[in-house]
């Protein structure tokens, strides 16, 4: 069977200028000064497959390249080299609540976010009540989003996101916020998605949740794959990596 996600030799580097070149003045005042760059390589030669119906975790320390990898999978960044093949409908977002603005009401934000995620006006109308019910925010529908707590924001954003038809879902750290009740609700939707043989890629620091849901996982360290395989083993490798400071230099 064709893998849902196939990444082959993905590399990405950012050139970080030592001086701010984004001013014309710099160019005018110092026309011949070459800007010096620091090459930051968040990803080097990352190769892995995710099978259809698989729940796949990506873990690693802050700055190890997890989000960059996810952005490349989603098509937000273009890789410098390597190839990503996607089979199936890929959800285009990596974080929840794209396009939310605090000055507008939840009602308006549901429309903006839902439409950005690809829902039609009619679909949104049909699912509007369901979204609010799932988020448990019926009472606050006409309140401006700036008055929402971060937990309420995540509830709303997640409730909209799961209305979008997809085969493959990419999620960057969604489990961190939200109370226990809502997390349970999310976990239930994961179970439903599993039954429907959806593919999900999680990036998370919540190792317990990852070991509960993911079959396989990938550990990034300094932009390279440090370990890949059965989720529990990879999580153990991650813990081992930071349990012993000597290995940090790897």
């Amino acid at each position, binding site marked *: 069977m064709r893998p849902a996600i196939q990444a082959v*030799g993905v590399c990405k580097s950012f050139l970080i200028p030592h001086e701010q070149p984004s001013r014309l003045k710099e160019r005018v005042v110092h026309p011949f000064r070459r800007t010096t760059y620091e090459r930051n390589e968040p990803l080097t030669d990352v190769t892995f497959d995710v099978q259809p119906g698989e729940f796949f975790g990506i873990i690693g320390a802050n700055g190890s390249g997890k989000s960059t990898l996810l952005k490349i999978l989603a*098509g937000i960044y273009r890789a410098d080299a390597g190839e990503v093949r996607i089979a199936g409908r890929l959800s285009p977002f990596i974080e929840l609540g*794209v396009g939310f603005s605090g*000055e507008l009401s939840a009602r308006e934000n549901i429309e903006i976010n839902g439409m950005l995620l690809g829902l039609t006006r009619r679909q949104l109308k049909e699912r509007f009540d369901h979204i609010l019910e799932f988020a448990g925010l019926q009472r606050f529908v006409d309140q401006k989003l700036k008055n929402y707590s971060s937990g309420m924001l995540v509830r709303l954003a997640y409730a909209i996101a799961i209305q979008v038809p997809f085969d493959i879902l990419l999620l960057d750290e969604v489990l961190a916020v939200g109370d226990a009740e809502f997390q349970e609700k999310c976990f239930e939707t994961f179970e439903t998605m599993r039954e429907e043989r959806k593919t999900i890629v999680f990036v998370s620091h919540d190792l317990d949740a990852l070991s509960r849901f993911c079959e396989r996982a990938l550990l990034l360290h300094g932009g390279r794959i440090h370990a890949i395989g059965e989720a529990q083993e990879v999580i153990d490798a991650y813990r081992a990596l930071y349990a012993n400071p000597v290995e940090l230099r790897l």
Partner: protein
Amino acid sequence: MPQASSITPPSSDYFVLQAPLLERGAYYARVLRVLSVSDFKLKYAGSILGYVWSLMKPLAYFAVLWVVFSGLFKSTLPKFPLYLLLGVVMWTFVADAVSTTLPSIVSRGAILRRIAFPPIVIPLAATITALMTFALNLIIIVVFIAGYRVVPNIRWLLLAPLLLELYLFALGLSLLLATLNVKFRDIGQIWEVGSQLLFFTAPVMYPASILPVWARHIVVFNPFVQILMDTRRVILGRDAQAIQLVGMHGNHIIPLCVIACVLFLSWFVYRRQSHRFAELA
């Protein structure tokens, strides 16, 4: 970097980009609509008078210029208030479109970093927001036209291509500056000066006939001048006191070429830069 040359860069067939053309077009249209409407709402969020402000701005300009210049042009331009208002409202649209679009890619960068998305929709939505304000301002013009009992005739059909030309000019300029602004944040400052320059050199508050001949050869390169003069000629007829800026068809060919060049250039810069917007914005 390992064997970079032997590996092909990833194709961009993601998400809606996988969908058939029609479906994709419908998606862009929906997003365009929701973004421009929410932009419009956000612009006036929390203000008491709301979009009444969008009427106040050109009216205030108009009032000031009318007080200063009405005595000067009373004899040459019999319907000077309407003449002036047309210029002010049309210029306000161009200025408004550019100044809202210019920072749009940067200020909406959060969207581009979180969702795979054709970035052009963002500046496009900003120009459409400006178009909505412009539509509101047209109400003032209609009131003035009715007040002066100017009777529409068949030539008024020419207003449609003229308004389209005005939009294309604003669009090209906005898109070009918005794209450049992602990399060079100076563009905002440059436009502040540039817009003043364009405003004062265009015959908004004075008839083009007072310009010296050498200056006419320069202002003809500003497409706004041609659009404004033609619109006045259509609505005011002989009262517009229109003149030829340069000989023969230069009045039209030069500005149309300028608009085409601006549009082409903006598209060219956009195509080269757009894949990096998510990183730079």
